[in-house]
């Protein structure tokens, strides 16, 4: 969690046990370079420093740069995201309860700002997800404990 990785076809990127965190996957269809960020929090402005891969607003730009360094073209990038669930129904009266939704919104906002098209999302709900991202063809495999598995 709270990290990011880049890879190239035919590698697969994976992250397990996404609850309120969002897995943001970016892909360049021509070079088949992919990247995945495991985002924990919506914004670095709340924070007192630390690992920038944690925050939606810093992780996505870093991920884009890493992919460009590998040879990707920013203007071709497309995105798929998963996660952002509310695992506990009555956890607390404050904002932290809605962190899943806030993460999803923050990631979508950063993508929009970077002019990266969001092709698919599997977000929300109250269950955990494990995801595998195939750099070969941009398939995002989403697995849950009780609600089966699918590709988006």
């Amino acid at each position: 969690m709270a990290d990011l990785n880049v890879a190239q076809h035919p590698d697969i990127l994976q992250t397990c046990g996404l609850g309120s965190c969002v897995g943001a996957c970016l892909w360049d269809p021509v070079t088949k370079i992919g990247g995945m960020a495991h985002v924990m929090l919506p914004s670095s402005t709340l924070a007192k420093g630390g690992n920038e891969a944690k925050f939606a607003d810093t992780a996505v730009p870093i991920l884009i740069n890493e992919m460009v360094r590998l040879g990707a073209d920013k203007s071709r990038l497309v995105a798929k995201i998963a996660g952002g669930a509310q695992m506990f129904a009555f956890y607390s009266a404050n904002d932290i309860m809605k962190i899943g939704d806030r993460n999803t919104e923050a990631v979508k906002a950063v993508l929009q700002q970077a002019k990266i098209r969001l092709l698919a999302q599997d977000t929300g709900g109250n269950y955990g997800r494990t995801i595998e991202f195939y750099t070969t063809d941009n398939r995002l495999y989403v697995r849950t404990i009780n609600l089966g598995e699918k590709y988006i």
Partner: protein
Amino acid sequence: MAAYENISEHKLDAFREIGTIGAGNGATALSQMMNRKIGMTVPAIRVLPFAQVPDVVGGPERLVAGVITSVEGHAPCNLLFMFPIESARMLAGVLIECNYGDGEIDDIGRSALVEAVNVITGAFLNALGDFAQLVMMPTVPALAIDMAGAILDVVLAQIGIIGDQVILMETVFTEIEENVTGHFFLLPEAGSLEKIMEAIGVKD
């Protein structure tokens, strides 16, 4: 982020001492509730990067029952109980006198789990409150049965606002006959550890 990186052995020892007293109370309470003998490990205090916390309970995809209690007051923290699913079924089964086998835990069983955790955390907080002379008020606990990593997300995110490492106090409760194990995590929020240390008079 150096939130917990340079914490002194002295403070860690004090934290461990508090944990032992609190967890001991908790084990007694659970024992009374289940009418069984409950053992517990001496609490381990660990300072870990986030990513490693799920491994403590068997990995981010491990199916667990997690009960989280948010504690307000002088030293806000989160108390998180995690049972591997087999233990959760066993514990719920003992409490309501039924056998879940390999199946899903129904609403009654889920309530029983929350109640058991309520009892343990109540005992723990009483001990901690008395020892440290702090006001510690638990809120209503919440239960989720799902992947360990997913359940840990919210708690770790809260801590993530202030650093990249979490300090956790971990104790394993075991019921010997039926092999029920539960991990108990005390996760202090930013500044709370210092307040607890101050309250019990521990200086660097």
